[in-house]
């Protein structure tokens, strides 16, 4: 593998507008039973003050993808650029990958009876376009980046956020810029 592509999610900029989630569905017209990308509202108690903070998670194209390891039909492959691609033609719908992924990103399509997930819009990338979610992000909180040491050494770049599973399980190719909270004058204090 020559490089590892992944997402950089800026929680400081993200407003939880869910445009990325629906732009993904718009691009692929995916069934209602699957959510390749999902915006999560982080729990209030994980922060020093109440807040509405969000993360937007699709497949993390992990360095050690559990989906790929457990899949009995070799539906998963990891490309040279690190994208974990799921080939739905091979899938037999055993759902083992949905049990193995800490991020719940392989999603079972209730109509097709097969799993599907974010393939990082590799067809768009191959044509020089941004992934649909990144292109749709109004506050520009979501970026496609190369995950490397240089990125990890940058100040403010985090490997995990409160609410995310321990990254050591799969080494997800996602990085975060942590949420920032302003001053609050609230009536309940």
């Amino acid at each position, binding site marked *: 593998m020559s490089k590892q592509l992944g997402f950089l999610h800026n929680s400081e900029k993200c407003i939880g507008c869910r445009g990325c989630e629906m732009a993904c569905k718009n691009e692929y017209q995916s069934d209602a039973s699957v959510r390749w990308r999902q915006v*999560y*509202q*982080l*729990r209030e108690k994980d922060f020093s003050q109440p807040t509405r903070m969000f*993360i937007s*998670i699709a497949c993390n194209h992990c360095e050690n993808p*559990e989906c*790929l*390891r*457990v*899949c*009995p*039909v*070799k539906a998963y492959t990891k490309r040279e650029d690190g994208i974990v691609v799921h080939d739905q033609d*091979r*899938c*037999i*719908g*055993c*759902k*083992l990958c949905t*049990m*193995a*992924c*800490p*991020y*719940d990103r392989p999603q*079972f399509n209730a109509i*097709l*009876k*097969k799993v599907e997930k974010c393939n990082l819009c590799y067809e768009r990338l191959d044509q020089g376009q941004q992934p649909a979610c990144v292109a749709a992000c109004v506050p520009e909180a979501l970026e496609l980046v190369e995950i490397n040491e240089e990125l990890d050494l940058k100040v403010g770049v985090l490997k995990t956020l409160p*609410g*995310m*599973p*321990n990254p050591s*399980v*799969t080494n997800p190719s996602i990085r975060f810029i942590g949420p920032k909270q302003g001053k609050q004058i609230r009536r309940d204090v």
Partner: protein
Amino acid sequence: MGNWEWPLVIFTVLGQTSVGIIFCLWLLERKRGKQATATTTEYQGFIQSSILVSGVLLAVAMIASLFHLGHPFAAYRALTHLGTSWLSREILLFVFAFGAWAYLALLSRKPGSKMSGMMALTSGLGFLGIISSALIYTLPRVPAWNNLGPVIFFLMTSIILGTLVTAFLGRKVLASAEVKQLLNIALGSVIGSAILYLLYFSLLQATPEGAATAQYLLTSPVFLVRVAVGWVIPIFLIMNAVLKKENPQPQIILFALTCGVAGELLGRGLFYVSAMGMHITALM
């Protein structure tokens, strides 16, 4: 939390029982071989029918497993990732086990053939299949599964139900000592299983997800039933049977077997439903 994965429950419990039966037959054969006990037609018939029951169970199990798949007719493709997928390996081993069983079934029809080797091979492949099954669920994502628990409990199921089925099938043919030996193994396994489960419970507390699994089980009425019919009642019944001087009553064995099967099925159902994986903790 997971789902009630009934096809997988049927597959694992029946498949494990099937392997356990062949294993018991091997135990009996080996002992009889050592003691050079003369083979009666009744005994021959018992071996034949037991092998048949084992095969039917294995076949039903494997068919049931297909119902778990979104695309059962493409199940053959599941053999294509032996490199890292325990599911591929499990299926391969069960296919081999089934092949071995078929040869064993053939042998059992030929009078005078020596079967203990083939029984060892069949049950050995079966046990490897069961271990592979368990390793499928040994997922880092699921702390309740990511330990020796699945391997131990899957093998326990095989022994408990294998011995009880074999004891019941051999109730008229086997010597009292043989039946009691099987029941003793069953008793040891049920008690062992219950004790190991207690240890397993304390292990679960180590992670938040494991604790959630434990919490789910402790508050689930199904788990109470599973404890009663899977552990308490069989222990009582089998103990009663082996401690009495006379031959164990077939009704008692049947009752213990029924309870054991119900307990293992419910237990396996809970295994899937109570599994709590690491996940993104957020408002839903």
